[in-house]
Protein backbone atom coordinates (compact mmCIF):
# COMPACT_ATOMS: atom_id res chain seq x y z
CA UNK A 1 0.00 0.00 0.00
CA UNK A 2 2.76 2.39 0.99
CA UNK A 3 4.76 1.68 -2.15
CA UNK A 4 1.63 2.07 -4.25
CA UNK A 5 1.03 5.51 -2.80
CA UNK A 6 4.62 6.46 -3.43
CA UNK A 7 4.40 5.31 -7.03
CA UNK A 8 1.31 7.39 -7.62
CA UNK A 9 2.73 10.50 -5.99
CA UNK A 10 5.87 10.17 -8.10
CA UNK A 11 3.70 9.79 -11.18
CA UNK A 12 1.64 12.80 -10.14
CA UNK A 13 4.70 15.01 -9.76
CA UNK A 14 6.05 13.79 -13.09
CA UNK A 15 2.79 14.76 -14.73
CA UNK A 16 2.78 18.20 -13.12
CA UNK A 17 6.37 18.72 -14.17
CA UNK A 18 5.67 17.66 -17.74
CA UNK A 19 2.61 19.88 -17.79
CA UNK A 20 4.53 22.98 -16.69
CA UNK A 21 7.39 22.31 -19.07
CA UNK A 22 5.10 21.72 -22.03
CA UNK A 23 2.97 24.75 -21.31
CA UNK A 24 6.10 26.91 -21.20
CA UNK A 25 7.45 25.42 -24.39
CA UNK A 26 4.28 25.51 -26.48
CA UNK A 27 3.11 28.78 -24.91
CA UNK A 28 -0.32 27.31 -24.83
CA UNK A 29 -3.03 29.18 -23.04
CA UNK A 30 -6.07 27.01 -22.47
CA UNK A 31 -8.26 30.09 -22.31
CA UNK A 32 -7.20 31.10 -25.76
CA UNK A 33 -10.09 29.08 -27.03
CA UNK A 34 -12.50 31.42 -25.26
CA UNK A 35 -11.02 34.45 -27.00
CA UNK A 36 -11.87 32.70 -30.22
CA UNK A 37 -15.35 31.84 -29.13
CA UNK A 38 -16.88 34.29 -31.57
CA UNK A 39 -14.89 32.74 -34.33
CA UNK A 40 -16.16 29.32 -33.37
CA UNK A 41 -19.73 30.44 -33.22
CA UNK A 42 -19.51 32.13 -36.58
CA UNK A 43 -17.85 29.08 -38.04
CA UNK A 44 -20.38 26.62 -36.73
CA UNK A 45 -23.51 28.66 -37.33
CA UNK A 46 -22.61 30.34 -40.61
CA UNK A 47 -20.34 27.89 -42.35
CA UNK A 48 -21.30 24.49 -41.07
CA UNK A 49 -25.04 24.56 -40.75
CA UNK A 50 -27.06 23.31 -42.39
CA UNK A 51 -25.31 20.23 -43.74
CA UNK A 52 -25.59 20.22 -47.49
CA UNK A 53 -27.52 17.42 -49.11
CA UNK A 54 -25.36 15.86 -51.78
CA UNK A 55 -26.99 15.00 -55.07
CA UNK A 56 -26.09 13.21 -58.25
CA UNK A 57 -22.38 12.93 -58.85
CA UNK A 58 -21.44 14.24 -55.44
CA UNK A 59 -23.51 11.58 -53.74
CA UNK A 60 -21.92 8.95 -55.91
CA UNK A 61 -18.44 10.24 -55.07
CA UNK A 62 -19.19 10.08 -51.36
CA UNK A 63 -20.53 6.55 -51.58
CA UNK A 64 -17.59 5.40 -53.62
CA UNK A 65 -15.26 7.06 -51.14
CA UNK A 66 -16.83 5.26 -48.22
CA UNK A 67 -16.78 1.95 -50.06
CA UNK A 68 -13.11 2.40 -50.95
CA UNK A 69 -12.22 3.26 -47.37
CA UNK A 70 -14.04 0.21 -46.01
CA UNK A 71 -12.54 -2.11 -48.63
CA UNK A 72 -9.09 -0.75 -47.92
CA UNK A 73 -9.44 -1.28 -44.17
CA UNK A 74 -10.93 -4.76 -44.51
CA UNK A 75 -8.64 -6.26 -47.10
CA UNK A 76 -5.51 -4.65 -45.64
CA UNK A 77 -6.34 -6.08 -42.23
CA UNK A 78 -7.01 -9.54 -43.68
CA UNK A 79 -3.78 -9.65 -45.64
CA UNK A 80 -1.89 -8.37 -42.61
CA UNK A 81 -3.57 -10.96 -40.37
CA UNK A 82 -2.51 -13.89 -42.54
CA UNK A 83 1.08 -12.64 -42.72
CA UNK A 84 1.06 -11.82 -39.02
CA UNK A 85 -0.12 -15.32 -38.12
CA UNK A 86 2.77 -16.91 -39.96
CA UNK A 87 5.24 -14.45 -38.45
CA UNK A 88 3.81 -14.77 -34.95
CA UNK A 89 4.73 -18.47 -34.96
CA UNK A 90 8.34 -17.38 -35.15
CA UNK A 91 7.84 -14.61 -32.61
CA UNK A 92 6.49 -16.91 -29.90
CA UNK A 93 9.03 -18.25 -27.48
CA UNK A 94 7.13 -21.48 -26.98
CA UNK A 95 6.53 -22.55 -30.56
CA UNK A 96 9.24 -21.15 -32.75
CA UNK A 97 11.30 -23.89 -34.36
CA UNK A 98 14.27 -21.54 -34.54
CA UNK A 99 15.66 -20.70 -31.15
CA UNK A 100 16.88 -17.18 -31.81
CA UNK A 101 14.00 -16.00 -33.99
CA UNK A 102 11.62 -14.56 -31.32
CA UNK A 103 14.10 -11.86 -30.36
CA UNK A 104 14.66 -10.70 -33.92
CA UNK A 105 11.06 -10.95 -35.05
CA UNK A 106 9.80 -9.08 -32.01
CA UNK A 107 12.39 -6.36 -32.43
CA UNK A 108 11.45 -5.99 -36.08
CA UNK A 109 7.74 -5.78 -35.22
CA UNK A 110 8.43 -3.21 -32.50
CA UNK A 111 10.28 -1.09 -35.02
CA UNK A 112 7.44 -1.25 -37.54
CA UNK A 113 4.79 -0.66 -34.90
CA UNK A 114 6.28 2.45 -33.39
CA UNK A 115 6.26 4.33 -36.67
CA UNK A 116 2.73 5.64 -37.32
CA UNK A 117 0.79 4.42 -40.36
CA UNK A 118 0.78 7.89 -41.87
CA UNK A 119 4.56 8.13 -41.78
CA UNK A 120 4.70 4.84 -43.67
CA UNK A 121 2.22 6.26 -46.11
CA UNK A 122 4.43 9.28 -46.71
CA UNK A 123 7.56 7.21 -47.21
CA UNK A 124 5.74 4.97 -49.66
CA UNK A 125 4.07 7.86 -51.48
CA UNK A 126 7.44 9.36 -52.22
CA UNK A 127 8.68 6.14 -53.78
CA UNK A 128 5.62 4.38 -55.21
CA UNK A 129 3.44 7.34 -56.07
CA UNK A 130 0.04 8.35 -54.77
CA UNK A 131 -2.91 5.97 -54.82
CA UNK A 132 -5.03 3.44 -52.98
CA UNK A 133 -2.39 0.76 -53.43
CA UNK A 134 0.09 2.65 -51.30
CA UNK A 135 -2.51 3.44 -48.67
CA UNK A 136 -3.28 -0.28 -48.62
CA UNK A 137 0.35 -1.20 -48.03
CA UNK A 138 0.81 1.46 -45.35
CA UNK A 139 -2.20 0.13 -43.44
CA UNK A 140 -0.90 -3.41 -43.90
CA UNK A 141 2.46 -2.56 -42.38
CA UNK A 142 1.14 -0.99 -39.20
CA UNK A 143 -1.59 -3.54 -38.52
CA UNK A 144 0.79 -6.38 -39.38
CA UNK A 145 3.25 -5.15 -36.77
CA UNK A 146 0.50 -4.77 -34.20
CA UNK A 147 -0.95 -8.22 -34.84
CA UNK A 148 2.42 -10.00 -34.78
CA UNK A 149 2.82 -8.94 -31.19
CA UNK A 150 -0.81 -9.57 -30.24
CA UNK A 151 -0.85 -13.03 -31.86
CA UNK A 152 2.49 -14.05 -30.38
CA UNK A 153 1.26 -13.10 -26.92
CA UNK A 154 -1.97 -15.01 -27.46
CA UNK A 155 -0.01 -18.09 -28.47
CA UNK A 156 2.29 -17.80 -25.47
CA UNK A 157 -0.62 -17.24 -23.08
CA UNK A 158 -3.12 -19.81 -24.21
CA UNK A 159 -1.40 -22.76 -25.69
CA UNK A 160 1.59 -23.12 -23.43
CA UNK A 161 0.69 -26.52 -22.05
CA UNK A 162 -1.03 -28.35 -24.84
CA UNK A 163 1.84 -27.64 -27.23
CA UNK A 164 4.17 -29.57 -24.96
CA UNK A 165 1.93 -32.63 -25.07
CA UNK A 166 1.81 -32.56 -28.86
CA UNK A 167 5.56 -32.19 -29.07
CA UNK A 168 6.01 -35.03 -26.63
CA UNK A 169 3.89 -37.25 -28.88
CA UNK A 170 6.32 -36.55 -31.71
CA UNK A 171 4.21 -34.06 -33.68
CA UNK A 172 6.04 -31.92 -36.20
CA UNK A 173 6.01 -28.11 -36.17
CA UNK A 174 3.24 -27.86 -38.76
CA UNK A 175 1.16 -30.49 -36.96
CA UNK A 176 1.54 -28.57 -33.71
CA UNK A 177 0.33 -25.43 -35.48
CA UNK A 178 -2.76 -27.09 -36.95
CA UNK A 179 -3.75 -29.31 -34.03
CA UNK A 180 -2.61 -27.23 -31.06
CA UNK A 181 -2.34 -23.54 -31.83
CA UNK A 182 -5.19 -23.03 -34.28
CA UNK A 183 -7.93 -24.78 -32.29
CA UNK A 184 -6.99 -23.13 -29.00
CA UNK A 185 -6.03 -19.63 -30.17
CA UNK A 186 -8.37 -18.98 -33.08
CA UNK A 187 -10.88 -17.08 -31.01
CA UNK A 188 -8.18 -14.90 -29.51
CA UNK A 189 -6.88 -14.16 -32.99
CA UNK A 190 -10.33 -13.21 -34.26
CA UNK A 191 -10.83 -10.88 -31.32
CA UNK A 192 -7.61 -9.02 -32.16
CA UNK A 193 -8.53 -9.03 -35.83
CA UNK A 194 -11.83 -7.28 -35.13
CA UNK A 195 -10.05 -4.70 -32.99
CA UNK A 196 -7.62 -4.10 -35.82
CA UNK A 197 -10.44 -3.57 -38.29
CA UNK A 198 -11.87 -0.85 -36.06
CA UNK A 199 -8.51 0.88 -35.81
CA UNK A 200 -7.79 0.51 -39.52
CA UNK A 201 -11.10 1.97 -40.56
CA UNK A 202 -10.14 5.18 -38.78
CA UNK A 203 -6.58 5.18 -40.11
CA UNK A 204 -7.68 4.41 -43.64
CA UNK A 205 -9.77 7.59 -43.55
CA UNK A 206 -6.69 9.51 -42.44
CA UNK A 207 -4.33 7.84 -44.89
CA UNK A 208 -6.88 8.72 -47.55
CA UNK A 209 -6.56 12.39 -46.66
CA UNK A 210 -2.90 12.54 -47.60
CA UNK A 211 -3.35 10.68 -50.86
CA UNK A 212 -4.56 7.16 -50.25
CA UNK A 213 -7.95 7.83 -51.78
CA UNK A 214 -11.34 7.08 -50.30
CA UNK A 215 -13.60 9.26 -48.20
CA UNK A 216 -10.67 11.06 -46.57
CA UNK A 217 -9.58 12.48 -49.88
CA UNK A 218 -13.13 13.59 -50.71
CA UNK A 219 -13.39 15.36 -47.35
CA UNK A 220 -10.07 17.09 -47.74
CA UNK A 221 -10.92 18.39 -51.17
CA UNK A 222 -14.13 19.94 -49.87
CA UNK A 223 -12.36 21.43 -46.85
CA UNK A 224 -9.69 22.93 -49.06
CA UNK A 225 -12.38 24.36 -51.29
CA UNK A 226 -14.02 26.05 -48.27
CA UNK A 227 -17.21 24.09 -48.89
CA UNK A 228 -17.93 23.57 -45.24
CA UNK A 229 -21.57 22.58 -45.52
CA UNK A 230 -20.65 19.62 -47.67
CA UNK A 231 -17.69 18.84 -45.41
CA UNK A 232 -20.05 18.64 -42.47
CA UNK A 233 -22.19 16.12 -44.35
CA UNK A 234 -19.11 14.01 -45.06
CA UNK A 235 -17.97 14.18 -41.45
CA UNK A 236 -21.39 12.93 -40.43
CA UNK A 237 -21.12 10.18 -43.03
CA UNK A 238 -17.72 9.14 -41.65
CA UNK A 239 -19.11 9.08 -38.12
CA UNK A 240 -22.03 6.93 -39.22
CA UNK A 241 -19.71 4.58 -41.07
CA UNK A 242 -17.43 4.16 -38.05
CA UNK A 243 -20.34 3.69 -35.66
CA UNK A 244 -21.96 1.10 -37.90
CA UNK A 245 -18.77 -0.90 -38.24
CA UNK A 246 -18.21 -0.70 -34.47
CA UNK A 247 -21.73 -1.97 -33.91
CA UNK A 248 -21.11 -4.80 -36.39
CA UNK A 249 -17.86 -5.87 -34.75
CA UNK A 250 -19.53 -5.78 -31.34
CA UNK A 251 -22.34 -7.94 -32.68
CA UNK A 252 -19.79 -10.39 -34.12
CA UNK A 253 -17.95 -10.54 -30.80
CA UNK A 254 -21.14 -11.54 -29.08
CA UNK A 255 -22.13 -13.98 -31.81
CA UNK A 256 -18.69 -15.62 -31.84
CA UNK A 257 -18.68 -15.80 -28.07
CA UNK A 258 -15.35 -14.06 -27.76
CA UNK A 259 -15.77 -12.42 -24.37
Amino acid sequence: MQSEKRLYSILFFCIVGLFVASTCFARYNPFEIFFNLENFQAFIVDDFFPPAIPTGLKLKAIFQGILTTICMALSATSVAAVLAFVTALFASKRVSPIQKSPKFVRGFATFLRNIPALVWAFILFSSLGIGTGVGFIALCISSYAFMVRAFAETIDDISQDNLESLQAAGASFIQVVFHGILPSCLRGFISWFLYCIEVNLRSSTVVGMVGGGGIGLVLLSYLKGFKYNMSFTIILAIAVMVLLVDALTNYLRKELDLE
Partner: protein
Amino acid sequence: MEPILTFDHVTKRYGNGVCALKDVSLSVRPGEFISIIGPSGSGKSTLLRSINKLISTTEGNIFFDGENVSALRGGRLRKNRSKIGMIFQNYNLVYNLSVLQNVLHGRLGHMSGIRGILGLYPEEDKEKAWTLLEEMGLEKFCYNKAGSLSGGQKQRVGIARAIIQDPKILLCDEPIASLDPSSAKVIMDLLKSTAQKRGIPCLVNLHQVDVAMRYSTRIIGLHAGEIVFDGEPESLSDSVLERIYGTSVTNLVAGTSDEKDWQQAYAV
Protein backbone atom coordinates in the same frame (compact mmCIF):
# COMPACT_ATOMS: atom_id res chain seq x y z
CA MET B 1 16.52 -58.19 -19.21
CA GLU B 2 18.11 -55.47 -21.31
CA PRO B 3 17.37 -51.99 -19.96
CA ILE B 4 15.19 -49.92 -22.29
CA LEU B 5 16.34 -46.61 -20.89
CA THR B 6 19.74 -45.70 -19.53
CA PHE B 7 21.00 -42.45 -18.04
CA ASP B 8 24.77 -42.20 -18.26
CA HIS B 9 26.19 -39.48 -15.99
CA VAL B 10 23.64 -36.88 -17.09
CA THR B 11 23.98 -33.27 -15.95
CA LYS B 12 21.67 -30.37 -16.72
CA ARG B 13 22.60 -26.78 -15.98
CA TYR B 14 20.16 -23.97 -16.78
CA GLY B 15 21.26 -20.61 -18.11
CA ASN B 16 20.82 -18.98 -14.71
CA GLY B 17 23.36 -21.34 -13.16
CA VAL B 18 20.82 -23.62 -11.48
CA CYS B 19 21.93 -27.22 -11.65
CA ALA B 20 18.78 -29.31 -12.09
CA LEU B 21 20.46 -32.68 -12.59
CA LYS B 22 23.85 -33.64 -11.20
CA ASP B 23 25.61 -36.67 -12.61
CA VAL B 24 22.51 -38.84 -12.76
CA SER B 25 22.90 -42.47 -13.78
CA LEU B 26 20.09 -45.02 -13.81
CA SER B 27 18.50 -47.64 -16.00
CA VAL B 28 14.93 -48.79 -16.52
CA ARG B 29 13.84 -52.29 -17.53
CA PRO B 30 10.55 -53.34 -19.11
CA GLY B 31 7.73 -53.97 -16.65
CA GLU B 32 9.05 -51.69 -13.95
CA PHE B 33 6.86 -49.11 -12.24
CA ILE B 34 9.23 -46.49 -10.90
CA SER B 35 8.25 -43.52 -8.75
CA ILE B 36 10.50 -40.50 -8.55
CA ILE B 37 10.06 -38.56 -5.34
CA GLY B 38 11.71 -35.43 -4.06
CA PRO B 39 10.91 -31.88 -2.96
CA SER B 40 9.86 -29.21 -5.44
CA GLY B 41 12.78 -28.05 -7.53
CA SER B 42 14.75 -31.23 -7.03
CA GLY B 43 14.84 -31.89 -10.77
CA LYS B 44 12.01 -34.43 -11.15
CA SER B 45 10.43 -32.66 -14.10
CA THR B 46 13.77 -32.03 -15.75
CA LEU B 47 14.62 -35.71 -15.43
CA LEU B 48 11.43 -36.79 -17.23
CA ARG B 49 11.61 -34.11 -19.90
CA SER B 50 15.19 -34.87 -20.75
CA ILE B 51 14.14 -38.38 -21.82
CA ASN B 52 12.12 -37.10 -24.78
CA LYS B 53 14.34 -34.04 -25.16
CA LEU B 54 11.67 -31.49 -24.33
CA ILE B 55 14.62 -30.24 -22.30
CA SER B 56 18.09 -30.91 -23.65
CA THR B 57 20.83 -31.93 -21.26
CA THR B 58 24.21 -30.31 -20.76
CA GLU B 59 26.45 -33.33 -20.22
CA GLY B 60 26.19 -37.09 -20.40
CA ASN B 61 24.13 -39.38 -22.60
CA ILE B 62 20.64 -40.82 -22.43
CA PHE B 63 20.06 -44.07 -24.30
CA PHE B 64 16.51 -45.01 -25.12
CA ASP B 65 15.63 -48.04 -27.21
CA GLY B 66 19.18 -48.31 -28.44
CA GLU B 67 19.53 -44.70 -29.54
CA ASN B 68 21.36 -41.79 -27.97
CA VAL B 69 18.58 -39.28 -27.33
CA SER B 70 20.93 -36.37 -26.73
CA ALA B 71 22.21 -36.60 -30.29
CA LEU B 72 18.82 -36.86 -32.01
CA ARG B 73 17.33 -34.04 -34.05
CA GLY B 74 14.52 -33.41 -36.53
CA GLY B 75 12.68 -36.43 -37.90
CA ARG B 76 14.66 -38.96 -35.86
CA LEU B 77 13.81 -37.09 -32.67
CA ARG B 78 10.11 -37.06 -33.62
CA LYS B 79 10.23 -40.79 -34.31
CA ASN B 80 11.86 -41.35 -30.95
CA ARG B 81 9.32 -39.17 -29.17
CA SER B 82 6.46 -41.10 -30.73
CA LYS B 83 7.73 -44.16 -28.84
CA ILE B 84 7.49 -42.34 -25.51
CA GLY B 85 4.08 -41.67 -23.95
CA MET B 86 3.78 -38.72 -21.62
CA ILE B 87 1.13 -37.74 -19.08
CA PHE B 88 1.05 -34.27 -17.58
CA GLN B 89 -0.06 -32.66 -14.36
CA ASN B 90 -2.31 -30.18 -16.17
CA TYR B 91 -3.57 -32.82 -18.62
CA ASN B 92 -2.41 -30.56 -21.50
CA LEU B 93 -5.41 -31.27 -23.68
CA VAL B 94 -6.65 -28.96 -26.42
CA TYR B 95 -9.90 -27.98 -24.74
CA ASN B 96 -11.68 -26.81 -27.88
CA LEU B 97 -11.38 -30.18 -29.59
CA SER B 98 -13.35 -33.35 -28.98
CA VAL B 99 -12.11 -36.09 -26.66
CA LEU B 100 -11.52 -38.39 -29.64
CA GLN B 101 -9.45 -35.77 -31.44
CA ASN B 102 -7.37 -35.28 -28.33
CA VAL B 103 -6.71 -39.00 -28.02
CA LEU B 104 -5.79 -39.23 -31.68
CA HIS B 105 -3.18 -36.51 -31.19
CA GLY B 106 -1.09 -39.36 -29.85
CA ARG B 107 -0.90 -40.75 -33.40
CA LEU B 108 0.44 -37.53 -34.93
CA GLY B 109 4.01 -38.68 -34.45
CA HIS B 110 3.31 -41.65 -36.73
CA MET B 111 1.80 -39.52 -39.47
CA SER B 112 3.35 -37.21 -41.97
CA GLY B 113 2.46 -35.04 -44.92
CA ILE B 114 -0.93 -33.54 -45.63
CA ARG B 115 -2.86 -36.26 -43.79
CA GLY B 116 -1.08 -35.40 -40.58
CA ILE B 117 -1.74 -31.70 -41.03
CA LEU B 118 -5.45 -32.09 -41.72
CA GLY B 119 -5.92 -34.78 -39.10
CA LEU B 120 -7.12 -37.48 -41.51
CA TYR B 121 -6.35 -40.41 -39.24
CA PRO B 122 -6.62 -43.99 -40.54
CA GLU B 123 -9.83 -45.81 -39.60
CA GLU B 124 -7.98 -48.39 -37.51
CA ASP B 125 -6.50 -45.61 -35.35
CA LYS B 126 -9.96 -44.16 -34.78
CA GLU B 127 -11.35 -47.57 -33.80
CA LYS B 128 -8.42 -48.06 -31.47
CA ALA B 129 -9.04 -44.67 -29.88
CA TRP B 130 -12.65 -45.67 -29.31
CA THR B 131 -11.78 -48.98 -27.65
CA LEU B 132 -9.18 -47.26 -25.50
CA LEU B 133 -11.75 -44.71 -24.35
CA GLU B 134 -14.11 -47.59 -23.58
CA GLU B 135 -11.37 -49.10 -21.46
CA MET B 136 -11.10 -45.75 -19.65
CA GLY B 137 -14.89 -45.65 -19.21
CA LEU B 138 -15.23 -42.51 -21.28
CA GLU B 139 -17.04 -43.78 -24.39
CA LYS B 140 -20.03 -41.58 -23.57
CA PHE B 141 -17.88 -38.46 -23.77
CA CYS B 142 -16.08 -39.22 -27.03
CA TYR B 143 -17.77 -36.45 -28.95
CA ASN B 144 -17.74 -33.88 -26.14
CA LYS B 145 -15.31 -31.02 -25.90
CA ALA B 146 -12.31 -31.98 -23.80
CA GLY B 147 -12.73 -28.75 -21.83
CA SER B 148 -16.12 -29.87 -20.52
CA LEU B 149 -14.76 -32.89 -18.64
CA SER B 150 -13.85 -33.08 -14.96
CA GLY B 151 -10.23 -33.24 -13.85
CA GLY B 152 -10.13 -37.00 -13.41
CA GLN B 153 -11.78 -37.56 -16.78
CA LYS B 154 -9.31 -35.21 -18.47
CA GLN B 155 -6.44 -37.18 -17.02
CA ARG B 156 -7.98 -40.41 -18.31
CA VAL B 157 -8.05 -38.84 -21.77
CA GLY B 158 -4.39 -37.97 -21.20
CA ILE B 159 -3.62 -41.62 -20.42
CA ALA B 160 -5.50 -42.80 -23.52
CA ARG B 161 -3.54 -40.31 -25.62
CA ALA B 162 -0.28 -41.69 -24.28
CA ILE B 163 -1.30 -45.36 -24.71
CA ILE B 164 -2.48 -44.95 -28.31
CA GLN B 165 1.10 -44.06 -29.21
CA ASP B 166 2.06 -47.71 -28.56
CA PRO B 167 4.80 -46.38 -26.32
CA LYS B 168 7.78 -48.34 -25.10
CA ILE B 169 7.81 -46.27 -21.91
CA LEU B 170 5.34 -44.06 -20.07
CA LEU B 171 6.45 -40.81 -18.43
CA CYS B 172 4.01 -39.34 -15.93
CA ASP B 173 4.72 -35.87 -14.61
CA GLU B 174 2.77 -35.44 -11.37
CA PRO B 175 -0.29 -37.15 -12.83
CA ILE B 176 -2.43 -36.73 -9.71
CA ALA B 177 -1.20 -33.39 -8.32
CA SER B 178 -4.25 -31.49 -9.58
CA LEU B 179 -6.84 -34.11 -8.63
CA ASP B 180 -9.02 -34.79 -5.62
CA PRO B 181 -8.24 -37.93 -3.55
CA SER B 182 -10.82 -40.27 -5.07
CA SER B 183 -10.00 -39.35 -8.69
CA ALA B 184 -6.33 -39.64 -7.82
CA LYS B 185 -6.82 -43.19 -6.71
CA VAL B 186 -8.77 -44.04 -9.86
CA ILE B 187 -6.03 -42.55 -12.04
CA MET B 188 -3.21 -44.36 -10.22
CA ASP B 189 -5.05 -47.70 -10.42
CA LEU B 190 -5.77 -47.16 -14.10
CA LEU B 191 -2.18 -46.18 -14.79
CA LYS B 192 -0.83 -49.23 -13.04
CA SER B 193 -3.25 -51.69 -14.66
CA THR B 194 -2.89 -50.31 -18.21
CA ALA B 195 0.87 -50.25 -17.95
CA GLN B 196 1.08 -53.76 -16.51
CA LYS B 197 -1.33 -55.23 -19.04
CA ARG B 198 0.86 -53.98 -21.88
CA GLY B 199 4.17 -54.48 -20.13
CA ILE B 200 5.11 -50.83 -20.50
CA PRO B 201 7.58 -49.51 -17.95
CA CYS B 202 6.39 -46.40 -16.10
CA LEU B 203 8.32 -43.47 -14.69
CA VAL B 204 6.09 -41.43 -12.37
CA ASN B 205 6.92 -38.15 -10.65
CA LEU B 206 5.09 -38.01 -7.36
CA HIS B 207 4.73 -35.68 -4.44
CA GLN B 208 2.96 -38.21 -2.24
CA VAL B 209 5.33 -40.67 -0.64
CA ASP B 210 2.51 -43.04 0.37
CA VAL B 211 1.24 -43.32 -3.16
CA ALA B 212 4.75 -44.07 -4.31
CA MET B 213 5.11 -46.78 -1.67
CA ARG B 214 1.78 -48.31 -2.61
CA TYR B 215 2.15 -48.59 -6.35
CA SER B 216 5.80 -48.72 -7.31
CA THR B 217 8.14 -51.61 -7.80
CA ARG B 218 11.06 -49.24 -7.34
CA ILE B 219 11.53 -45.76 -5.93
CA ILE B 220 14.09 -43.13 -6.87
CA GLY B 221 14.70 -40.25 -4.47
CA LEU B 222 16.03 -37.00 -5.85
CA HIS B 223 17.51 -34.20 -3.82
CA ALA B 224 18.92 -31.07 -5.47
CA GLY B 225 19.41 -32.91 -8.75
CA GLU B 226 21.21 -35.90 -7.26
CA ILE B 227 19.93 -39.42 -6.81
CA VAL B 228 20.09 -40.08 -3.07
CA PHE B 229 18.01 -43.24 -3.07
CA ASP B 230 17.31 -45.94 -5.63
CA GLY B 231 15.68 -49.16 -4.49
CA GLU B 232 12.63 -51.11 -3.43
CA PRO B 233 9.83 -49.31 -1.63
CA GLU B 234 10.38 -51.55 1.41
CA SER B 235 13.88 -50.25 1.96
CA LEU B 236 12.76 -46.63 2.00
CA SER B 237 13.41 -45.83 5.64
CA ASP B 238 12.70 -42.67 7.59
CA SER B 239 16.30 -41.63 7.51
CA VAL B 240 16.37 -41.94 3.73
CA LEU B 241 13.22 -39.82 3.48
CA GLU B 242 14.88 -37.21 5.63
CA ARG B 243 17.80 -37.16 3.25
CA ILE B 244 15.49 -36.78 0.24
CA TYR B 245 13.34 -34.04 1.62
CA GLY B 246 15.96 -32.41 3.81
CA THR B 247 13.59 -32.22 6.76
CA SER B 248 12.57 -34.45 9.63
CA VAL B 249 10.00 -37.17 8.98
CA THR B 250 7.53 -35.67 11.41
CA ASN B 251 7.21 -32.72 9.05
CA LEU B 252 6.31 -35.01 6.20
CA VAL B 253 2.92 -36.58 5.88
CA ALA B 254 4.29 -40.04 5.38
CA GLY B 255 3.88 -43.28 7.14
CA THR B 256 2.54 -46.75 6.74
CA SER B 257 0.34 -47.50 3.82
CA ASP B 258 -2.97 -48.35 5.41
CA GLU B 259 -6.14 -46.81 4.12
CA LYS B 260 -6.60 -44.21 6.84
CA ASP B 261 -3.22 -42.65 6.41
CA TRP B 262 -3.58 -42.71 2.68
CA GLN B 263 -6.62 -40.54 2.96
CA GLN B 264 -5.06 -38.33 5.58
CA ALA B 265 -2.14 -37.71 3.33
CA TYR B 266 -4.47 -36.26 0.75
CA ALA B 267 -6.48 -34.25 3.21
CA VAL B 268 -3.41 -32.16 4.01
